[in-house]
């Protein structure tokens, strides 16, 4: 069985944003979703090169949607995870989960600050 693709941190963030947005995942909404959830706005250059790279790897698939007057008649490019992308993301999240088992990081830093 082929091992899932290894994902970088930002790639996982982008994939999770795409999953959350379901059928409305394009550049603007992906960027806004990441900013809303992480508190940091990704640079457009970093976002689009990551999306292109993930499409080359076969992790995401894109298609052109409708053009709007707001965009000067330019079509939106929507993204969705492929089966391989979902597999890679689940694998990465399982790895995080197994490392998090037994820890209660969401309880705050004080639980693990031995010298505070």
């Amino acid at each position: 069985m082929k091992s899932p693709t290894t994902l970088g941190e930002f790639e996982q963030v982008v994939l999770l944003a795409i999953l959350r947005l379901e059928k409305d995942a394009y550049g603007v909404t992906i960027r806004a979703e990441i900013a809303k959830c992480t508190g940091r706005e990704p640079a457009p250059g970093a976002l689009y090169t990551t999306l292109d790279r993930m499409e080359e790897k076969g992790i995401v698939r894109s298609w052109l949607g409708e053009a709007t007057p707001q965009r000067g008649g330019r079509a939106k490019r929507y993204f969705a995870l492929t089966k391989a992308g979902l597999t890679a993301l689940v694998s990465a999240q399982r790895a995080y989960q197994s490392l998090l088992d037994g820890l209660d990081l969401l309880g705050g830093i004080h639980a693990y600050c031995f010298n505070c």
Partner: protein
Amino acid sequence: MLTASTAEWILCRVTSHERAASIVGDLVEIEEQKGLLWFWLSVAGVVFSLVWRQPLAFVAAFYAGAWTFFGFQMAIMGINAQHRPPEYPWMPVFTVLIFAGSMLCAVSLYAAIRYGVQDKVTQIAFAWTSLVTSVIYLWWQPVVLGLCITAALLIVSVSIFNSKLRKEALVVLVSVVIGSVLRFFVGLLAGLYQHFLLRGPWGTREMQEHPSLEWVVFCMLILTFWASTSAWSRMHNWLMRDQAIDTESEGKPAV
């Protein structure tokens, strides 16, 4: 809108028309909140992000190929070479290894910068580079030579019987062969041009009196590495497109 059209024209220089249009459309949507300065900084950022890898990879490949060719030549044919292989029949074999080895170093570095070290084709290229380099520098050690030949035969066998590896090995093979053959012809043409300029041995004084030779060789080498790295990029893109992974369809296929 002139601003958006200009930005789209700029982005079309570095990516496809459809992608450029969709990126500019996204930036136009956000520009209403962020302003014109942010729009142009973002365009500049996107252009830089899309193009920086390729020229950097090409320059690194060029210098890696040039320096390793020189190094390999010195190791085998240099005046101070400690272990020269027998003239016949091994010198022609090592000549081929020198050309192939320097091209392997060049395309390995190109692929590592352009596609990352986790790319399978890059890893295959690095494996072959290590083997060829080991043979060139340590051919006189029977154990090393035996291990390298065994490893090479193993890689070739696995590549033949595994369809995916076969395609990945083909990318490496085609790029290296193109680069090596062109490099060989550059050497031949440089020799002919040198003979045309001035017959007899050349020293530092002759090189200074005829600087055109260096420039001609430099330009031909640039073309050689451009051909080799372009072959790599095109075949790599073919390989990626050929690897159909998803069976689900979310919508229309991307352009």
